[in-house]
């Protein structure tokens, strides 16, 4: 029996006859989807298993609320529910990972100072130079830079802070139109994990790791701050890693079943 028909039959058994075994079967059938989606967020400082548990709540809600007469596949309905639950989990935990306002402001100030000093000194500034220009201690500079890293990593759909950050999450990036690329960049796009990135992220990684441009050169070419380039590089590498792990998950799971 085709998978969709099997899903429909189980959904009918549960919704029309209250068959909880059918509900259990549906949960089990969709666990790989939950795991796959949870993996995409697991690099944000949460354990994968915790996120799978949270995602399962979203899956159960989707199964319980599903309207069999609407003609939508359960996958289509469950995916945003699972992602929504995972995002809610991060939002609810926001208080424990919130960066103090002072550090946020210093991070933004440093972003401008890095660009200004790079032009002024004709080289990348040092931490002591940044501290002097910002009139703070070196430790404050390091802490603010680190807080920027935490902010970029942990924020989900929220703006990344600073300039024109458009933070696409995995669901929102689905269906994003890709524009034409130069041949060399097309080849790089074929590499594992790069499919998870949006066009700008791929371009920045290409410029940095295939063309060998520095962050400040990329910043000039793309028209964003150097600090923003840094954030995008870090985040893109993390996204790629998560995507590769997601791609490998079914293979590992099938190997472990053997």
């Amino acid at each position, binding site marked *: 029996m085709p998978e969709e028909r099997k899903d429909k039959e189980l959904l009918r058994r549960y919704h029309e006859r209250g068959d909880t075994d059918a509900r259990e079967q549906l949960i089990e059938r969709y666990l790989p989807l939950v795991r796959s989606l949870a993996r995409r967020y697991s690099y944000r400082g949460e354990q994968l298993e915790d996120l799978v548990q949270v995602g399962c709540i979203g899956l159960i809600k989707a199964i319980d609320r599903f309207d069999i007469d609407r003609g939508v596949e359960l996958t289509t309905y469950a995916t945003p529910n699972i992602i929504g639950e995972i995002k809610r989990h991060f939002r609810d935990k926001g208080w424990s990972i919130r960066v103090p306002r002072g550090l946020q402001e210093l991070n933004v100030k440093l972003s401008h100072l*890095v660009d200004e000093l790079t032009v002024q000194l004709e080289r*990348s500034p*040092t931490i002591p130079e940044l501290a002097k220009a910002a009139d703070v201690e070196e430790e404050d500079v390091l802490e603010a830079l*680190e807080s920027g890293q935490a902010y970029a990593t942990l924020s989900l759909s929220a703006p990344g802070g600073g300039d024109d950050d458009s933070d696409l999450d995995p669901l929102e990036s689905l269906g994003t139109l890709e524009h034409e690329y130069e041949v060399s960049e097309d080849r790089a796009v074929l590499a594992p994990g790069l499919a998870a990135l949006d066009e700008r992220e791929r371009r920045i*990684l290409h410029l940095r*790791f*295939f063309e060998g441009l520095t962050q400040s050169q990329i910043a000039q070419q793309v028209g964003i701050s*150097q600090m923003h380039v840094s954030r995008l590089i870090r985040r893109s590498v993390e996204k*790629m890693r998560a995507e590769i792990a997601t791609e490998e998950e079914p293979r590992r799971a099938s190997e472990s079943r053997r």
Partner: protein
Amino acid sequence: MTGAIELRIPNDPPFHGVARLVVGGLAARHNLSFEELEDLQLALVTVLEGDDYAAAAEVCVELEVSDDAIAMAIGPLHGDVVRADLEASSGDVLGLGRLLATLVEDAGVEAREDGDWLRLSKRVRGIKPAEANA
């Protein structure tokens, strides 16, 4: 490593920020540029967060500064996995090998008593202690 900084942390993402901060502190003391610091931190985190790299529940990061370079060693790791990733990601593939080739000058796996370690070396522009500049 004589006079090196050695940091031992649980192999858990929340602790990777601690390692980044230590590299930052070292960069500040030795007048590394913002970009050099960024490269070192990204190289370190890429290795720390690599799937299946770590061979133990704790991971150790060693840092040593010479006249014109910073050496970083991370271990114990599964050397065969790291070696495979270093070799696999050449050409058009953006993997560990390509990333490290851009971020540092030298990367290689070395065998030690407690297992395999990844040794990275990054040349930096005119290192001198920050105090000497005052």
